[in-house]
Every structure is written in C-alpha cells, then in structure tokens.
C-alpha cells in the first residue's frame, strides 16, 4: 500500500494505491491526518482508482476522515471505487455521508482545472 498526497489551494487529494485492510489502514490514516491537520483543506478527495481491495477496515478509515473533515468545516469526496469497494461502502451507508464519484479523473489537472 502506498499513498501520494497533493494539495492545491484548498483541495487535498490522497491517491491511494494497493489494498486497504486492518494492516495497512493505520499508516494511511496517519499520513492523511498529518497533512489535513497541517493545512486544513476545504475538500479532501480520496482517490480509489488504484485500490484493488478494501474490507471493513477501510470503512473505519473513510468514516474517520469524514469526521475529521467535518470537524474542520470541510468536505470529503470519494472518487472511483471499484464495484467491490462500493459494495462494502454501501453496507456502512457511506454513499449517504460523502460524495462518491464514479468518474475517473486520473490526472492532477482533472481535479484542479474544474474548480
């Protein structure tokens, strides 16, 4: 599992890469939280394009980041989860909490130019 985080103005994008389970979730959470708490973005985007697997540990990760963003007055967006990941997310009702986009903005400019 690896993660790349970019910040442009008030939008932070976390590109997640690999598998999210109990073993990997802690490191992802720590990496994101340090960056969010350091720069207080308005919007946090979790990009799932390159996530090949997620179990309910990922639910805890997403809900925790949702809460963190709410606490600082921001929003959370989830981009391009696979059908398996969407199925896990829907069990927790994440589709009712955060915006889930199916589209595939895979380039950095796809996010920032639309602002």
């Amino acid at each position: 599992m690896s993660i790349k985080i970019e910040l442009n103005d008030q939008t932070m994008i976390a590109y997640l890469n690999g598998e999210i389970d109990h073993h990997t979730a802690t490191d992802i959470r720590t990496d994101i939280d340090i960056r969010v708490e350091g720069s207080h973005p308005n919007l946090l985007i979790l990009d799932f394009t390159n996530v090949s697997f997620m179990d309910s540990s990922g639910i805890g990760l997403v809900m925790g980041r949702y809460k963190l963003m709410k606490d600082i007055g921001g929003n959370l967006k989830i981009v391009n989860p696979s059908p398996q990941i969407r199925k896990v997310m829907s069990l927790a009702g994440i589709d009712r909490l955060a915006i889930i986009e199916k589209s595939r903005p895979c380039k950095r400019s796809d996010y920032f130019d639309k602002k």
Partner: protein
Amino acid sequence: MIKNEMKLQIPSKSSNESFARIAVASFFSQLDPTVDEISDIKTAVSEAVTNSIVHGYANEIGTIFIHAKIIDDNKIYIRIRDKGCGIDDLDQAMEPMFTTCKTGERSGLGFTVMQSFMDRLRVISKKGKGTTVTLTKRLRKRI
C-alpha cells in the same frame, strides 16, 4: 461430498491478513469463480481473520486455523478458528456497527460484511476458549 480441501495455520500477525485471503481465494480458483465471487470470498475471509487478530488474540500472537473445502461441484466452505479470548456477547457482536474497540477506527461491520458477501455465516464462541467462524457459499454454476 468433499471434492477438495486445504488447511492453513498462520500466526495472528496483521501482515498475514493479505496472505490469508489470497491463499483461500487461490484455492477456490479451480472452480473458475467470477471476479465478483472471488472478491466476496476475499472480503469475508479478511473480516474473519482480522477479527481473530484484533479481538481473539488482542494481547498476544496466537494461531489462526483456516480450513477451506469444496463440497459438491460448486459449494464452498471456509472455517476460520482461533483459540483466543472468545466473544462475551455474541448477539451484540453480530449487531451492525457494534464494536468493543475503543481506540482505533473499527467500524463494527465485520460480521455484517461476512453475512452480506456469503450465503451463510455461523459463529461459535466460548469465553476463554476461542471463536470459530464458518462461511459457506454456493458459486454460480459454470457451463
């Protein structure tokens, strides 16, 4: 009738979560499952193994016993067993969003995921003796 079976023992280290779900999914690949079926199996196994690591052996490293079987032509059976602390209140543990974990970010959805992704979930637990999770699923018949 058992057509084939596989047994696996692993220490309850979180680094084995990925190995366990991939090993079980690989064993069932001989049935030529769909991508969705493989995802369902991997997710359910990951939940059960994680429960043994996080809860069963919360303060120690113990052994997790995995037994996977092919019954008939397309029915799969997976048993995941630990000899950990056991579950205090099984009915409560099965409730969606219930978790005993005060720290960290456990969603309390492990059993809900197993129930949703497999046809049948059976849990037997005894305080101080351990927990056994049995998962069964009938795969789509391939022509």
